[in-house]
């Protein structure tokens, strides 16, 4: 529970990030220091050319040097435990018990063991598939995809295999999507070799049926959409969309990364979709980890099951085995069975929640969003996207500070950066292109308490107040963070280095001067 902002000034001196003058770990060399020294470590006997000629360039630090170094670095971040109402796909807390469970249960296993010795983990995969089938109405789930985008790619490949099996792949070379579908759908459709047809939004906040009909035809391979879309708008015509695409012979894929508001209340299959995807690393409580180990759980109806990536876990009587003999399978999209520890964490979360828990979480996330909407409506200069339409919005929607920007010159980026001075992580704005100017898309989910939501909106309100009173404070923020504003865009290749080697190459002169 966060203390209300009114106590902020009274009881605290505000958030201040430590600002250590910390070298890059690679600069900690030449000291001869070691962490642990193994007196009699054997030198590996490597054949001829495999042995390196020069010793690797490694930092030389003691164990406590290393710990202090990383402690300092972590003190220079917001700590990933701040209030982050991060929309377009729910971010939630990842219970620590999941870390423990995956360590305890998976540490001793290897995916190449004989299946008889892996019965527990195979059972978990099978159970979780059943669980998600119940939730979505699909017939089989696989957990190989290493993220949401990877699951979308899985679908693009399944689409290809499906039409090829019917001899229609040459003809069906187009995948239809919408401008407010997550960019991973068009990107993966392109990668799989399809032409992408993107539908534009119209007055109701989503593309009209006429627009869809204008492009559906014999070339249609699939429809790939999320619903709600990136602005949080649910398309009320979605069943009709699916019917139209099916009638033309295309498949329909539901990117259900934004599942939180309708968990246990809406099944992708019942809307007619052939396949869908959930994000275990978001909706199902497993860590997302900055594009690191994630899982896009991909599920499909019976007619697509033969094309799924393998091996697939199969239950034979009382035991489980891995079925790799699947002639129509698209093959692998990821090594082994994907990120098994994440699957286990999500499974633990889902079992702990149960059907009732999921339903309650969905309801709370809608309630929280309504509360958030109600409060945001009272903040000066903040508006909701598509104010004139009444399409349902459940767990999130896009807002804008355009008026604040016009009146004070402070953009949403400035406001977001000033909010970090109050311990708030950078806001989620919008995917591109920005159809709503100066956008931000908060989502509370079931996690954040009313006090948390209040604090977040209080900070926003406070910062917008500052923008009107003294815009300079906002424009030059952050003031209390370890690092202030960037001085150049991140896509300037001569400036930025993402590895130490690149840094040495690009900044040799400067390093020599130092």
């Amino acid at each position, binding site marked *: 529970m966060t203390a209300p902002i009114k106590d902020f000034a009274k009881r605290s001196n505000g958030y201040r990030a430590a600002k250590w003058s910390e070298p890059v770990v690679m600069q900690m060399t030449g000291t001869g220091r070691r962490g642990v020294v193994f007196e009699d470590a054997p030198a590996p006997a490597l054949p001829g050319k495999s042995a390196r000629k020069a010793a690797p360039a490694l930092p030389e630090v003691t164990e406590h040097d290393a710990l202090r170094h990383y402690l300092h670095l972590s003190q220079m971040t917001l700590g990933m435990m701040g209030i982050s109402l991060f929309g377009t796909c729910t971010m939630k807390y990842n219970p620590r018990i999941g870390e423990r469970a995956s360590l305890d249960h998976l540490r001793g296993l290897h995916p190449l063991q004989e299946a008889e010795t892996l019965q527990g983990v195979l059972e978990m995969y099978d159970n979780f598939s059943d669980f998600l089938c119940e939730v979505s109405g699909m017939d089989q789930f696989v957990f190989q995809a290493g993220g949401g985008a990877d699951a979308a790619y899985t679908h693009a490949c399944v689409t290809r295999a499906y039409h090829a099996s019917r001899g229609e792949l040459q003809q069906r070379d187009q995948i239809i999507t919408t*401008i407010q579908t997550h960019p991973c759908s*068009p990107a993966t459709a*392109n990668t799989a070799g*399809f*032409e*992408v*047809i*993107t*539908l*534009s*939004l*119209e007055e109701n906040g989503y*593309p009209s049926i*006429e*627009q869809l009909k*204008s*492009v559906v035809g014999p070339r249609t391979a699939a429809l790939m959409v999320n619903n709600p879309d990136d602005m949080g708008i649910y398309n009320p015509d979605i069943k009709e969309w699916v019917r139209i695409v099916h009638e033309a012979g295309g498949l329909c894929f539901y990117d259900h990364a934004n599942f939180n508001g309708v968990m246990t209340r809406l099944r992708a299959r019942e809307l007619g979709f052939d396949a869908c995807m959930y994000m275990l690393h978001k909706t199902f409580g497993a860590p997302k980890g900055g594009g690191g180990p994630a899982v896009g759980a991909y599920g499909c109806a019976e007619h697509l099951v033969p094309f799924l990536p393998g091996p697939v876990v199969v239950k034979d009587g009382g035991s489980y085995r891995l079925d790799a003999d699947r002639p129509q399978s698209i093959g692998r999209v990821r090594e082994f069975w994907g990120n098994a520890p994440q699957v286990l964490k999500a499974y633990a979360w889902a079992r702990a929640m149960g059907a009732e828990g999921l339903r309650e979480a969905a309801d709370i996330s809608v309630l929280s969003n309504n509360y958030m909407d109600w409060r945001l409506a009272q903040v000066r200069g903040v508006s909701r996207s598509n104010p004139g339409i009444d399409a349902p919005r459940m767990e999130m929607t896009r807002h804008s500070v355009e008026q604040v*920007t*016009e009146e004070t*010159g402070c*953009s949403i*980026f400035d406001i*977001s*950066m000033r909010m970090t001075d109050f311990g708030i992580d950078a806001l989620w*704005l919008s995917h*591109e*292109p*920005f*159809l709503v100017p100066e956008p931000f898309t908060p989502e509370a989910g079931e996690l954040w308490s009313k006090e948390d939501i209040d604090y977040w909106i209080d900070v926003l309100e406070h910062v917008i107040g500052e923008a009107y009173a003294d*815009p*300079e404070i906002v*424009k030059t923020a952050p003031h209390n963070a370890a690092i202030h*504003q*960037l001085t*150049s*865009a*991140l*896509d*300037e290749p001569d400036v930025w280095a993402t590895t130490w080697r690149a840094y040495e190459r690009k900044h040799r002169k400067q390093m020599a001067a130092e």
Partner: protein
Amino acid sequence: MSRLGLIINPVAGLGGAMGRKGSDETDIAQRATAEGRVSQAPHRAARALAAFRAQSDAPVLAGPVLPDGDAAQAFGPGALTQTAKDTLATVQAMQGQVDLILFAGGDGTARDICAANETGIPILGIPSGVKMQSGVFARSPERAGRLSAAFLADPRRRTEMVEILDLDEAARRDGRLSAQLYTVARTALDRQGARQNPKAGSTDPVGDLDAALAAYVAEMEPDTLYILGPGTTMKALKDRLGGGSLLGVDLAEGGRLTGIDLDDTALLARVRGRRVRVVLTVVGGQGFLLGRGNQQISSQVLRAAGLPPIDVICGAEKLAGLTPQELTIDTGDPTLDGTLAGYWPVITGAGRKQVVRVVA
């Protein structure tokens, strides 16, 4: 040290309030004075300058008149003639002196600036005119100011080419609103947020379009006669076919250009009996597909060619900037416009099309 040039056309916008379709008539200043009217341009320039000043302390050289307030130094000719000559002289004096020319005016001012801008300094418009069909105008004075500051701060000074259109006086005398494509200019690339939002740096509109053009050329049918419209995007397509005109309508067949800068009579003669395709881009800043800047592709030409398929190539960023989200056609033939209206797939990248509503 970076410097900003600020051109304020003191008669910009006057014609609108006086019920005229522009402010280009030479005696507009005297008549406005007689009617007691003042231009909003200095005021709008001051708004842009305030937004600029909030983010930049670069010197601002302003002329032929000064904005309201005192945030700029006077620059250019001392004695004013009260005609477009003042603008031309100021722009000439700015050559080599400034890094960006911000101007308050409309299409007419943009044309004058381009005429005098010999070294091709990037220009950016503060919307203040009667006619603003060109692609150089920011959406508001404040945005123009902020974008100018961002441009001067950007070490790479990224720019893009945009079309400068102005009302077609000949068509106007016939009672029809139509615009001609006069030239192209370099303008500051709007990279809103690229600096502080790392994810915003990820798209590459120029690369996307380039790939789209390459794919288009690779798939051109050998027996079809292609009518290629004007504009910077189309020029890049024509360059892939060996050259061609920037402002004109060209023809291509069999993988090369076979007609350059043709008028509608020449096009009429060439399309008869042929299998034809038309390739267009969205010209200027107002979302026009046909009837602005490409009148050569007239309703007669389209009918003579048997209402050929029309391919449109346009970057997704440009489409996203349209308000409302639609494109417009105005061939001067309402029946034809009605037939053509509907949902058009616009090529936005290699293997990418976006469906956009086209209205008459």
